């Protein structure tokens, strides 16, 4: 479904459209927010909860929006804020089990190009694990800066912090990520 079309459907009375159309809208919405939420929650189960809960909010509030111009950004923001709120409210979500990492032990004997690809894959897996260890606050900061590419001024506004505080959080987040990652990288190398 065209991106614009599903946004328009969200602005209509969503409960009155048929289930097939509702499903298409939900799938488009889920694909839009899933990776962002997963980056923050580091768990498919939690991501699913956030995606579902936020969808009800989006369906309820979307018809009140003036236009569809900034709707996509608004939806993404609603979903992320829900994930942030969940962390704030419930500390039990802060320590999640790590996902299983499968490392191909044949990697060193493969053709260099393939080996490079495998190395990329291993690096990504280890980075996933390192991100799992980071606190939600640091993940949020890294997400806003590196994935959303927001400047410190915008991040500080959204988080209600000073730019200096954001810069400090970023330094700490980088350091911790580097420490968690290098520990694993060395272990994987041995």
């Amino acid at each position, binding site marked *: 479904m065209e991106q614009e079309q599903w946004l328009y459907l969200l602005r209509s009375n*969503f*409960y009155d459209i048929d*289930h097939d159309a*509702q*499903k298409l809208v*939900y*799938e488009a919405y*889920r*694909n839009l927010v*899933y*990776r*962002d939420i*997963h*980056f923050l929650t580091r768990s*498919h189960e939690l991501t*699913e909860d956030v*995606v*579902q809960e936020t*969808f*009800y909010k989006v*369906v309820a509030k979307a018809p009140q929006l003036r236009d569809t111009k900034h709707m996509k950004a608004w939806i993404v923001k609603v979903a992320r804020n829900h994930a942030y709120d969940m962390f704030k409210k419930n500390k039990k979500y802060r320590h999640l089990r790590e996902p299983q990492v499968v490392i191909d032990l044949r990697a060193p004997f493969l053709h260099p190009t393939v080996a490079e690809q495998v190395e*990329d894959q291993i*690096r*990504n897996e280890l*980075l*996933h694990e390192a*991100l799992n260890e980071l606190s939600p606050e640091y993940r949020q900061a*890294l997400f806003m800066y*590196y*994935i959303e590419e927001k400047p410190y001024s915008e991040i500080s506004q959204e988080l209600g912090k000073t730019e200096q505080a954001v810069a400090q959080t970023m330094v700490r987040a*980088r350091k911790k*990520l580097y420490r968690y990652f290098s520990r694993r990288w060395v272990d994987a190398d041995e």
Partner: protein
Amino acid sequence: MSDEFKHDDEFLQKWLKDVHQDVDIPDGTQSWLEVKAGLDKIKARRRWMKRFQIGALVACTSLLISFFMTADLPTAYSEFQGLIKRVQENLIDIFFEEPEPYLEENSNAKTSSPPPDYIVSSPPAGESHIEDTSLEEARGKVSFPIVSPTYIPASYELENVRIFQDSDGEYRTVFMEYVNREGHLIQLNQHMIRENSSPEKITINHAMAVIKDTFINDCKAVLIIQEPDFIHLEWVTPDHMKRSIFGTLAEEEMILIAESLK
């Protein structure tokens, strides 16, 4: 920012973006089924609320009319005529006793009978005073033995009890609300019919409902189904009690609840 730091930062950004995009989105079928169930519940709740609001509007209107009539201010009633005429289209009146001729529409009367969205039971005559109370307290106040169901679907619990005091000070009406974890409601109403009161009547918009005759413990009853899951059951017992139950549940369950009243 040093070149080295900038270089490292660019790498970190690339890696983090890879990790972000690296996540496989799982199949969404199960997720959609869960969301669909949630949406259906919200839709049912919204419909219920709409129905309740219209019902409440009509009930308030008829209570206001009763008040104005009692206070001998018939002119005030004319303000409500439009609403009553509109909602009286496509209606069926069900009487639990033979309607006496003088109770039918009187061409000289200043008012016609009050009226509904879909189903409205005749409200108690005169002014009513509503009290939220407990079942025990209600038992001590009302003029009849309150019955309660020995069968109620799983997870429903009695949450509210309301009693209505008529203008003569007697309590002849009790509302009991059972609510489950999802917020679904079953309401049980018990109303003692006064000896000289007008015949008990409910008015139904037949375009919006299926009406079935049934029996509850040998008493003739009427089952009104609006949606596949919204059911209203009403009957009068030999001891002049009008009982009604409504909620969003299966027909068989509704009858089981009604037959379990003790």
